[in-house]
């Protein structure tokens, strides 16, 4: 059941007056306080406890958000920025009620693309599907790093939350793809970070870099909307190569899988190298509770690469094969095979191509009402150990092991994501316990959760450098003295 809100937000002003004011800013059709509208914003697919908002507003432009922020700051009413709610971390659940500022419906313009300088300016509501279609149709020489998220998820939210993409093995976290941001601060001030700061009138054609001035962009990366409302982002695009290929590793043992991820990542030949456990792979064929059979491989590794010329692509493939063979030579369990992805698809069925053709809806992930994960940035060295330990926990809780991993930024770090799909009402308590146990194991191995839900950040705050927490709080107080932006996240 959805809980009632804890915060007394309407001391200075009555709720009815708030509604009137919101209607004045956004117009009647774009404001609601009806429970049947609000309930959809009160929860997500994860185990995060639900909370009802009091209002939802659908802004169209920045000026409306400025008015909203000024109003909320005056009366200390929480504002929660929302785009599509697909973060799998309960990050837009309004912990203390207040107003959901849903930018996913009417703030979805692709504002400008600079083909030569390879960046694009987006409003928060622009989705991966929309961006991909736009680039494919109008700028076929350019691409973005697409996430293994549904096409209706927000591009900008993914970047702000240090999400991952199918260019992450090459380029790293999506946080590093940001040239700059436009943000409404708590005092209603509209600012731009990155090189666009260099003009009074905020020009769109000079947003080509994040540095070298004092880095104010970082004030909004990883902060989960607690420091201001981001209204535009300038994001880097990359040239799309003429020749592309995808390989697939069929791997026995977590150790072999982790070695392939790390060494392929370090080869600097791949745009993306990720792995999925056999059970996760089988899920796409529609098994309700996929089980790995005795002789089946433990992990599937998917590799995508490209080259401006056929020779470049072939040279990369040859080098990857060489690395793979060397790893096989050294491996205790030599059952590991590298094949062409297309060949594999032809054998096992087209459903499997969803892992390559992203953004895409991995339907089986969403066909249950519950989905959650402990997604974390992790040590490549510890991935094998973690895979094995986490696998054991899945078995303990009688859940199908759905383990995803990715090599990031040339193998400098990894992402490890044990996922759980579950039936919310029936299995929630069990899943909560399991998530806690997985988190403990991962923190023990120095993993840092990303898109971390509130319950995780509470645990992290207790374990981490206390001075880091103090600095976090200091910056939060500076950026949001009345505590209106997404309160409750990161223990703030």
């Amino acid at each position: 059941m959805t809980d009632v809100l804890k915060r007394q937000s309407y001391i200075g002003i009555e709720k009815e007056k708030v509604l009137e004011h919101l209607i004045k800013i956004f117009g009647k059709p774009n404001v609601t306080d009806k429970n049947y509208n609000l309930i959809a914003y009160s929860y997500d697919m994860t185990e995060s406890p639900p909370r009802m908002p009091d209002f939802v507003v659908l802004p169209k432009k920045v000026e409306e958000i400025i008015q909203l922020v000024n109003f909320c700051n005056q009366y200390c009413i929480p504002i929660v920025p929302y785009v599509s709610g697909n973060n799998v971390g309960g990050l837009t659940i309004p912990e203390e009620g207040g107003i959901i500022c849903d930018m996913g419906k009417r703030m979805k313009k692709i504002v400008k693309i600079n083909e030569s300088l390879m960046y694009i300016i987006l409003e928060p509501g622009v989705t991966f599907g929309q961006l991909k279609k736009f680039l494919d149709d109008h700028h076929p020489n350019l691409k973005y790093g697409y996430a293994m998220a549904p096409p209706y998820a927000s591009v900008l939210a993914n970047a702000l939350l240090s999400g991952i993409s199918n260019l992450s093995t090459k380029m790293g976290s999506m946080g590093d793809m940001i040239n700059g941001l436009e943000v409404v601060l708590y005092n209603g001030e509209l600012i731009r970070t990155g090189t666009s700061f260099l003009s009074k009138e905020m020009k769109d054609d000079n947003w080509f870099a994040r540095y070298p001035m004092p880095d104010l962009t970082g004030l909004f990366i990883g902060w989960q909307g607690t420091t201001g409302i981001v209204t535009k982002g300038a994001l880097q695009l990359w040239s799309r190569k003429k020749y592309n290929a995808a390989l697939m590793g069929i791997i026995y043992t977590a150790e072999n899988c982790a070695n392939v991820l790390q060494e392929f990542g370090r080869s600097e030949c791949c745009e993306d190298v990720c792995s999925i456990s056999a059970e996760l792979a089988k899920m796409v064929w529609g098994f309700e509770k996929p089980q790995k059979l005795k002789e089946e491989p433990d992990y599937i590794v998917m590799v995508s690469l490209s080259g401006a010329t056929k020779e470049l692509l072939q040279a990369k493939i040859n080098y990857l094969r060489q690395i793979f063979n060397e790893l096989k030579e050294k491996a205790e369990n030599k059952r590991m095979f590298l094949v062409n992805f297309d060949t594999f698809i032809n054998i096992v069925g087209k459903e499997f191509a969803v892992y390559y053709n992203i953004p895409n809806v991995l339907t089986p992930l969403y066909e249950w009402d519950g989905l959650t994960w402990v997604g974390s940035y992790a040590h490549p060295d510890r991935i094998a150990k973690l895979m094995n330990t986490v696998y054991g926990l899945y078995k303990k809780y009688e859940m199908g092991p759905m383990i995803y991993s990715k090599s990031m930024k040339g193998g400098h770090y990894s992402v490890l994501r044990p996922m759980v799909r579950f039936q919310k009402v029936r299995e929630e308590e069990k899943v909560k316990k399991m998530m806690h146990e997985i988190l403990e194991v991962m923190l023990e191995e120095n993993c840092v959760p990303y898109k971390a839900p509130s319950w995780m950040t509470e645990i992290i705050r207790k374990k981490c450098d206390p001075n880091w927490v103090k600095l976090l709080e200091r910056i939060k107080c500076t950026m949001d003295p009345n505590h209106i932006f997404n309160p409750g996240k990161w223990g703030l």
Partner: protein
Amino acid sequence: MSPNIFDQISKEETLTELISIFGRKYVSKKPSDLYPYSEDATESDPHMPDFVVLPKNVEEIVQLIKFCQKYSIPLVPYISGNNVGGLTIPEYGGIICDMGKRMNKIISINESLMYAILEPGVTWGQFKKLLDEKYPTLKYAYTYAPPYASVVANTLLSGLSDHSCAYGSMSEFLNGLEAVLNTGEVVRTGSCFLSKEMKEDNWFARYPMPDLTSLFIGWQGMTGIVTKAAVQLWPKKKYNTALAALVYGDKTCAKVVQELGRTECCDDVSAMSSTVAKMTLGLENPSQYEQEPDYAVFITVSGNTRELLEAKVKYIKYIFDRIKAQEGERIFLTNFFTLANLLGEKFTIYYDLPSVMLPMVEYSGITWVGTYANPDIIGPLLIECRNVFAQYSRAPLLFMKSMKASHYCVFMAITRYKKYEELEKIKELQKKFLDLTLEYDCFPYKTPKWMTEVIRERCNPGWLKLLDMIKRSMDPKNVFNPGKWGFEF
């Protein structure tokens, strides 16, 4: 008139306190010791510090900061003073905290996760030597700075390197920092935040928690004193080569740099006007003759296999030929070492980094307007800067580099000069370059005080307010490097 910074405690008492923290040997107030810290090779106005201290460890810096905060005494972090922006000149006097002499430990290298933890005083030369000798499979990216300049300062100031075309600004190489705050608290940013005590083995990423590392990047030491940094290393490739192009025409040169950068085949693509190239060969006042090329472009390429290296070189040549056909200009691509053999060994300093470019530092003055720039406008900008150099009867020393696969580039107009004879003229020249580059939407890096004053006038006022908010939050008494970015004491 400068404010009296010793209105809360006398200079004598300050000296006593500093000696109690650092020991007599590591504190000085003698003008002969202080003088080198009062100026650099640029046109920035000099100012004497009152004391210099040479810390050995973080605990001493904690005590120093607590003391300075208590009595509002300016504190300027210093390493080697090679920033070419007057960034460590103590605008209001106070204490220079020189970490270059005794805080220069390479604390650890994580070979598997490819990062190094460095104290601020670690130099390029020191770092390269250690990697070459002990970790031959790894490399860092090296700059055109002298081997005695600081690695950490370069990353904090968004410097560039010989891998900037592949990976971008050096700030993107940071996994995290240790910094002492105004309160004396020691904070760690990046993944190392995840434990109460500092574990050296978990400093592998900057994200995904709230990005507090950014509070110290580009801030010129105004938000705290950075005492350690975890920086990314990269695998050293087995096969390496370098190409050199001779290019006629400013716009063509800009195009060559931009297009080669976009191939994603190069570690580094930099261009310099032929006068810079000739300067390397020892000509005192190099000028360009009528038939000489306008620019030399350097390209470094590497590959894990010979096949990969060759495929990259082949593609670079293909792109180069395409530009040649389109532009109709005289441009030639050759092996760098062939050219170096023709021109003399001195020329290889552009490849063997870090190295001292003697001609750059043999005059008493060197300065530049170094900027992050829009690659599309470099052609016309080069032409205009050339004209400005001509107006002032100076050889055009121009430099540019493709950054992060040409998402942006770096542009520099460099001037070496005789400091005490030509200073006023150079100040005028620098102002002209600044106006011109700002007109072209370039943004100066390692920005001197006088430039930030001009920028404050032009830029988005909301951005300035946020800058002020953060500065006030991080350093309410304005003790850290006051005077920079318009934060007057």
